C-alpha cells in the first residue's frame, strides 16, 4: 500500500483536512479527507493512494487519489521520491 507526500490545510469542518498533492508539473491537486485518513511521518504528511504504475527510468509514478480532486482529477503523475510504501496491518487472530 502506498502514500504520497502532501501539504495539509484546514478542511470544511474541524474533522476534515484539505490535502494538496503536488504532481510532476508543479501543480497541486486539492481534495478533502477526514483528518485521521492522513499519516504524519517525520513532520511530513502523507495521503493514501493507489499505485497504478511506475516509470523507473524517469522515477515517476502514476497514482490514483482516494477520490476525485476539487479540479476533477482522479489520477496524476508524481515523483517516486514523494511516495512511501506502507505495510498493511496484520490480521489479529
Amino acid at each position, binding site marked *: *500500500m502506498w502514500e504520497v507526500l502532501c501539504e495539509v*490545510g*484546514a*478542511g*470544511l*469542518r474541524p474533522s476534515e483536512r*484539505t490535502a*494538496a498533492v503536488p*504532481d*510532476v*508539473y508543479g*501543480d*497541486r*491537486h*486539492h481534495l*478533502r*479527507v*477526514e483528518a*485521521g*485518513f492522513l*499519516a504524519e511521518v517525520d513532520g511530513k504528511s502523507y495521503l*493514501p*493512494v*493507489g*499505485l*497504478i*504504475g*511506475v*516509470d*523507473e527510468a*524517469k*522515477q*515517476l*509514478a*502514476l*497514482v*490514483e487519489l*482516494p*477520490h*476525485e*480532486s*476539487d*479540479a*476533477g*482529477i482522479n489520477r496524476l*503523475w508524481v*515523483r517516486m*521520491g514523494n511516495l512511501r510504501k*506502507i*505495510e*498493511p*496491518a496484520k490480521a*489479529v487472530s
Partner: protein
Amino acid sequence: MILSDREIDAAIRRGQVRITPPPDDLASGVWSSTALDLRLDARLQVWKPPEGPASRFVVDPCDVNFSATELASAHAHEEDCTEGFEVEPGMFLLGWTIEKIQLPHASRIAARVEGKSSLARIGIGVHVTAPTIHAGFGFRGQDPEFVGNPIQLEIWNVGPMTVRLVRGLRICQVIFEEVSGVPGRGYDGVFAIQGPDVPPLG
C-alpha cells in the same frame, strides 16, 4: 450486481463493508430491499452568492490547482442543523453523512449514493452528478482503527418551498454493487508504464 439488504448486512458482518456507526438491524426502517439510508450530520456549508462590486465571480475548475476549500472560505458560511436549518428555494449547500463508510479494495464492492424520493418530491436533492463511491473508499490498510470517511453531499433545493433539514434526517440512500476484478489501485504489485517527459529534479 446490486447487493440485496441481506447481502449488504452479510458484507458488513464479514468486514467487506464498514459503516460506522453500524446501521440498525434489518428490521429497521433504514433498510430497503437494495439500499441503506444514511443520516445527515449537523455541520453544513452554505454557498452564498458573491456580493459587492466584484459580484460577477467566475469559478474555474479547469485550473488543476483549484481548491474548493479556499473557495468556501470566501464564499460559503457554516451552519449547524442540530436544531434545524431551513433550506430556501435555490439554495445550494454541502453536508455530510453521520455514518462513515469504508470499502476495502479486496472486497470488490463499490457504492452509489442517491437521494431519497420523499425529499426529491419536495425539491431536495443530495448529489449533483457524481454518486459513485469507488472501491477503496475510506480504506487505510495499515490502520485498522480508521473507520472510513463520511459521504459529502451536495444538497440543493429546486422546489418552491423552504425545507427544514435536521441532524439525523435520513438524507440519502446507498446502493452497493459488486466490482468485477480488483481495481488497479488495489493491486499491491507495481506495473511498468511510460511516464511524461518532465525535467528531472535538482
